[in-house]
């Protein structure tokens, strides 16, 4: 058994973690992998950024501050 997951599996778990709590073992292996792998840390940061930005984007309709009430292309 591999001590840690592959990067591919880590990406799946990073995504899953945004939706539901991970099990103890997956969570532990994820943490171990992240400490050793800068690629996956960057993916973690990117997915988190996309998550935060998406939430803002989807709740505001479009880019923030772009709703001054001017019907530019009605």
């Amino acid at each position, binding site marked *: 058994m591999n001590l840690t997951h592959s990067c591919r599996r880590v990406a799946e778990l990073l995504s899953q973690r*945004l939706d539901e709590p991970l099990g103890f073992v997956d969570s532990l292996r994820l943490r171990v992998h992240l400490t050793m792998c800068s690629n996956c840390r960057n993916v973690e940061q990117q997915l988190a950024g996309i998550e935060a930005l998406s939430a803002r984007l989807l709740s505001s309709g479009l880019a923030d501050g772009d709703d001054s009430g001017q019907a530019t292309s009605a």
Partner: protein
Amino acid sequence: MTILERHPPDGAIPPATPGRVTAAPPLEAQLPELRRRLLRHARLAVHDHGLAEDLVQDTLIAVLEQQDKRRGDASLLTWATAILKHKVADWYRSPTRRRMVQFRADDESVDDAIDALYDADGAYVDPVPAWQQPENRTEQRQMMTILDRCVTFLPQQTGRVFLMREWLGFETSEISQRLGLSAENCRTILHRARMALRDCMQRDWIGAKAST
């Protein structure tokens, strides 16, 4: 459509109602643009144009009826988007809604793009660069605009599941239930959506920035 027919032609925006402190044009003048934006949003979330039109129409009626309840600090679009969100969520939760399970092959191109990231051992073929945070408000808005476009590029079914999660705020268990998906399938689709957005942002935001 009846609402829009009452809207004056372009350029003939009526004077603001006396007593309104806001400088924004009157609500009715903003409806066509608002409708366009809401429709775009609704289509991403339901993928049935007729249904999207109906939900947006209901939303616009609610906007007109409840405009007094709108808090001053929420933009019209944000407020209307929140109303639309409830209407879309209600539709997904309505018992009469027919179950729709049509995950089509169009989603596979995304899988290919994900496959291409990894070697046979599941390690990244190319180093994953760190993304710089946007430096100022202009960059932040550019980033939002690009993400907006990336979301519309998602394959239909993938995009719909993503919006159910990230916009409607459904738990994955509820998405699975409403769409008749397995939990594993739902997880895979959400992961695919996020990786596709990552790929799109890498190309159109980070990549474009690097080349300027």
